[in-house]
């Protein structure tokens, strides 16, 4: 065997074939659509694209998307940390049920994730008459978008944290307790610093999904322009109206937000691998 060749390595032609196939698939299914989005958006130059983005309905959609993310992400961050903490550090009855519930939003179709809110709070829903009597609008309004997004994006933080926290065990927390730390001091000074990179990574994933969610949001939105349209919904409307440049311009902005998020996540992960201290 030639020096420098690992004993477990496949023959060279096979390695090249596999790498080539992977690159081809990646290009075909990931890079090409992304490139298409940006090309289509700029087909007629920057001006029409910019115009589409500065149109009031588009601005309202961007604003709403950012608002939904700004609420869903912190709420799910807190909820996700709490759920992961319970599941990773304690044994209690109903623990596996809780674990299954956390994964529920991943396993049901987004359409159902939206529909449940209509069934609960819609005009014909369980609480519909009561809500109407008290003049509270949830479905086809911003609160409905919040609920649907919260539901769909709940698992990201918890799922990222659970394996790490399970791996770390309870030793450090117990040590902190014997040293006189209160629950909050233990969380802030011991637990949180230990999970911060994973937490950031989970938060960024949650953010990407919160901004990009279509299915669940589409069911509860009602598609009222300038009021309950988030960016993904706005893209669909524009596209259905044959305003291709505008549709792709908004889509490109959305993709850009997602790309920034992913880039941030990658940078963070590189930091973790280097084992950056404190």
């Amino acid at each position, binding site marked *: 065997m030639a020096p420098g060749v690992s004993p477990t390595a496949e023959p060279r032609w096979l390695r090249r074939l596999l790498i080539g196939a992977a690159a081809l698939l990646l290009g075909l299914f990931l890079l090409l659509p992304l490139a298409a989005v940006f090309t289509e958006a700029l087909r007629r130059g920057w001006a029409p694209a910019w115009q589409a983005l500065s149109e009031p309905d588009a601005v309202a959609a961007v604003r709403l998307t950012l608002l939904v993310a700004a609420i869903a992400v912190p709420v799910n961050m807190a909820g996700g940390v709490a759920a992961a903490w319970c599941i990773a550090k304690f044994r209690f009855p109903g623990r596996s049920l809780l674990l299954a519930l956390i994964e529920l939003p991943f396993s049901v179709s987004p359409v159902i994730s939206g529909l449940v809110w209509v069934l609960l709070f819609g005009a014909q829903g369980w609480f519909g008459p009561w809500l109407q009597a008290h003049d509270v609008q949830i479905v086809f309004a911003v609160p409905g978008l919040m609920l649907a997004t919260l539901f769909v994006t709940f698992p990201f933080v918890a799922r990222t944290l659970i394996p790490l926290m399970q791996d770390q065990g309870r030793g450090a927390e117990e040590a902190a307790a*014997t040293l006189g730390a209160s629950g909050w001091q233990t969380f802030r000074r011991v637990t949180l*610093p230990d999970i911060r990179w994973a937490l950031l990574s989970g938060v960024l994933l949650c953010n990407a999904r919160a901004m990009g969610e279509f299915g669940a949001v589409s069911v509860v939105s009602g598609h009222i322009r300038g009021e309950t349209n988030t960016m993904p919904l706005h893209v669909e409307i524009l596209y259905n109206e044959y305003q291709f440049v505008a549709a792709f311009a908004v889509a490109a902005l959305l993709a850009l937000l997602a790309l920034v998020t992913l880039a941030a996540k990658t940078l963070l992960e590189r930091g973790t691998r280097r084992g950056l201290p404190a």
Partner: protein
Amino acid sequence: MSLEVAQLSRRFGDAQALRDVSLAVRGGEFVALLGPSGSGKTTLLRVLAGLDFADAGTVRIDGRDMSAVPARERGIGFVFQSYALFRHMSVFENIAFGLRVRPRAQRPPRAEIARRVEALLGRMGIAELARRLPEQISGGQRQRVALARALAIEPRLLLLDEPFGALDAEVRKGLRRWLRALHAELGLTSLFVTHDQEEAMELADRVAVMQAGAVVQFDTPAAILDRPASAFVAGFLGHAARLPARLSAGALHFDPLPLPPLPRAALRATPEAEGPAVAFVRSHEWRIRPAAAGEGNATLLHARRSGGREQLEIDLAGQVIEAEAAPGLLQPGQPCVVEAVTARAYADKP
């Protein structure tokens, strides 16, 4: 500082981790909890620290019942088996933690904290490691950091779970002596868990031997070695050969082994009633001589020099026993005559 444990019980599902444990430790004592794995030593330690809770029984420190006192208010230093150092904090910050988390009114000023941490670092001989992270130091050094962190809160009771378990033999020996000295110097009251009987005997003022969740004997090392309270203790300690035996007509018979019986007066522990028994004979309690033609009840398998003596492995009618003799007495394969000088015998309960 005094510690009283009374009738402590703890059950995990089907497993009885602690069974009616009672123990009284005086201030300044160094006590070992010794037993095989699964005997409840660590559970007992965790209950004392408030990290686990007993189903029944009480723990009193200086007469005060601890059952309603949470771990963080007990002021007990705990050194974890895996050290449980805070990964993201420097050695200095690890040690300072217990002082920094105190309520403002009791928290020493910043400079005072630094002074105390540095004093501890110096005492532990790790002053140069202050800025390192736990992952950047060796196992023995981590052990010292864990100890310094526990001592920083000036605990009234120090608990150590297998303090030398993860260290190699050389480091272990050094740390043992050092810990013994530190205990005396600081006037600590300490309990440590170990499964290593030599460690327990060398370090502790008194040893609590645990078996299946119960303390079966609690006494000084010398007394435990001299008068094991049960067959379990005798078997667990002191490299003894376990032999089938029977007490009858005022003597201990070893049949079916070809050994001469021992009169009752020669025994160091005697069953209360006649009948089947187990006997323990330690390696220095054998008399051995080369066999003349036609006699001999055993054969030398293997000899190993240890200090000024030789450790022999002898085949006694199929049972291998360990014995001590003067060097060069026997050659491997040579037939010999062995007899027990004394034995500790206990009733063989089914």
